[in-house]
């Protein structure tokens, strides 16, 4: 449902709630009681649920993640003209949804992954407004990046399973799959956002 329809619905529910509140005598009749029940219970809950769903949807968008100034360089790193940079390669080749590029890789693919990601997001906000904001190149993940997030898409993928570097040693692929060997910190795919080196990087000019 488009956001403006949801906003309009929520606004209409607010107006109806006010009207019922200032015409409280309505509640003396049977029809008035039904209208009050709709205006003060059914519609507000429906409006809040729709709004919540829209907010959760927005919270997964790239615009949302990059709306904080400190994240600008991370957004720019998606355009580095070098395929060895994992986020840039995924973003530029549409290997992740472009409008959800951040969330796709930075959520936990577990039952409560989205909730965990949002709780971490609240922590970011607390730091942003009440803490000391680190420089972009000093931002670190709270926990080491889990292979599970890569394997969510790559597991079973032919290019991943058959790639010769993944068979350099006999047990490499199984070690990666079991999480014993990290995809990103074991020296194989070490170029992630690397925002500290952005000033020397060249960038891809996206065709309009």
């Amino acid at each position, binding site marked *: 449902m488009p956001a403006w329809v949801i*906003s309009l619905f929520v606004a209409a529910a607010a107006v109806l709630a006010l009207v019922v509140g*200032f015409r409280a*005598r309505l509640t003396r009749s049977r029809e008035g009681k039904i209208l009050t029940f709709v205006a003060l219970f059914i519609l*507000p809950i429906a409006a809040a649920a729709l*709004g919540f769903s829209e907010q959760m949807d*927005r919270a997964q968008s790239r615009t*949302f993640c990059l709306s904080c100034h400190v994240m600008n360089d991370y957004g720019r790193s998606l355009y580095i003209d070098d395929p060895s940079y994992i986020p840039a390669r995924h973003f530029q080749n549409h290997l992740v949804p472009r409008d959800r590029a951040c969330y796709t890789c930075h959520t936990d693919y577990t039952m409560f992954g989205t909730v965990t990601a949002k709780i971490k*997001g609240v922590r970011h906000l607390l730091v942003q407004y009440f803490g000391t904001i680190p420089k972009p190149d000093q931002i670190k993940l709270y926990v080491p990046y889990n292979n599970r997030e890569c394997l969510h898409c790559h597991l079973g993928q032919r290019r991943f399973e058959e790639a010769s570097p993944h068979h350099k040693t006999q047990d490499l692929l199984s070690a990666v799959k079991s999480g014993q060997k990290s995809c990103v910190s074991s020296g194989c795919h070490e170029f992630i956002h690397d925002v500290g080196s952005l000033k020397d990087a060249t960038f891809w000019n996206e065709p309009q």
Partner: protein
Amino acid sequence: MSRSKMASSVVETRIKWASLLVAAGLLVQVLALLRIHPLSFVAFLVIGCPLVAVGCLLYLESLVLADKPESK
């Protein structure tokens, strides 16, 4: 003022408060929907939703009050 009139006046006052809380909560939610930003998300969850919830609960309480027998 008779008891039933007093009771209905109390109920109507509660309904008025409930409607104000619900409307205020929904207004915060509409404003939070105007902009895509983490603060909008937090305002929606931390201010908008609780106001609506309290308003709904107050309305439900008024229903219970209205349903109470006048005298024992």
